[in-house]
């Protein structure tokens, strides 16, 4: 059962150690698309093995997509292993009636399926429970499924960017590449947490600009704050401030309001 440390918000990151920004979103019974690797990492790093917490979000039910192997069918249940390319996980599907048994009968080894299931009880029985197993007919669904945890991860870690960029400072100062975020060589991301190669001063400016935009006075105002005001407040070159603002707009931290010179933080509570 979900413990009482909740407020009823499924996305409250009450368990994560750096939950300086806790966001309450949606309802408690979440169904979240994940990869087996994410589940394994969350399981192994958590002290409470009965609950699954991924990116600070308490996970209710899980959706996985992968290939079936080792299927074994019995009268009361069917067990199988799902291989989604990131890892393998054992599942059991209880068979209670004819509908269930016809659902499991069509599943064969080597088939791509989508599973909705629950992780509860994994600690004791070393396998998860599947509620629904559906064969994949359109293989674009496989691609879509893997994009979803990426997006979710981005969303859930975005709210921590304030504390992350602070940690970022110490990484840059120590000039060491953190093992947690180890993609300094890819040009793909311009996400703040991965810019461990960024010059220290640039990250400083970006953070300072974001801080100004996240001040209560800026957040309170409906149209946010004017670029010139940010420049004045920080006493930094206008060009650098505008660069920082453009960057934050690109990654989605801020947005323009009444015109191209007023900006407001998208991260404010």
């Amino acid at each position, binding site marked *: 059962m979900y413990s009482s440390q909740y407020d009823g918000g499924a996305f409250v990151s009450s368990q994560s150690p750096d939950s300086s920004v806790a966001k309450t979103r949606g309802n408690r019974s979440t169904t979240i698309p994940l990869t087996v690797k994410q589940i394994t990492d969350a399981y192994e790093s958590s002290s409470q093995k009965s609950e699954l917490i991924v990116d600070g979000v308490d996970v209710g039910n899980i959706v996985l997509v992968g290939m079936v192997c080792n299927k074994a069918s019995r009268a009361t249940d069917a067990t199988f292993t799902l291989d989604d390319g990131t890892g393998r996980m054992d599942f059991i599907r209880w068979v209670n009636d004819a509908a269930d048994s016809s659902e499991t009968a069509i599943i064969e080894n080597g088939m791509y399926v989508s599973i909705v299931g629950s992780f509860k009880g994994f600690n004791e029985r070393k396998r998860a429970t599947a509620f629904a197993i559906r064969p994949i007919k359109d*293989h674009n669904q496989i691609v879509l499924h893997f994009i979803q945890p*990426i997006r979710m991860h981005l969303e859930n870690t975005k709210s921590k960017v304030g504390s992350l960029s602070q940690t970022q400072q110490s990484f840059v100062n120590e000039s060491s590449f953190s093992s947690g975020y180890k993609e300094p060589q890819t040009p793909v*991301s311009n996400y703040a947490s991965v810019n461990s190669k960024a010059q220290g001063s640039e990250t400083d400016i970006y953070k300072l600009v974001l801080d100004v935009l996240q001040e209560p006075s800026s957040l309170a105002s409906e149209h946010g704050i004017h670029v010139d005001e940010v420049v004045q407040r920080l006493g930094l070159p206008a060009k650098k401030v505008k660069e920082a603002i453009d960057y934050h707009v690109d990654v989605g931290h801020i947005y323009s309001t009444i015109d191209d010179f007023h900006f407001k933080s998208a991260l404010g509570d």
Partner: protein
Amino acid sequence: MDTSSPTVFVNGELLKLYMGRRVRTVVQVIRNEGGAVVGQSTDNQQLTVKGPNQSVPVMHFMEVIGVADGPQSIRAEICTDFGSNFDTASYNGLCKLANGQFKNLFL
């Protein structure tokens, strides 16, 4: 739960980074040449797939799971017919993300 031998999402460009490792990719079948299939990767490179290719029709998309044994070649273990309606741009984007910023979700 076992994450000891993950299969890396690759396209033509990324294949050469994972030589000798288990990879998965989707190619569009161009032609069959004896025991090998020549396919076009999602980033428009030609890859050769050796192994039990079953009978994926030409012009269909085929997912190949196997070991990368050359900069443009895979020794396939499993081939799956992905039909004729597959979005290569999305898959290509996924390969880049899964090997880049979000590698820790996959490998």
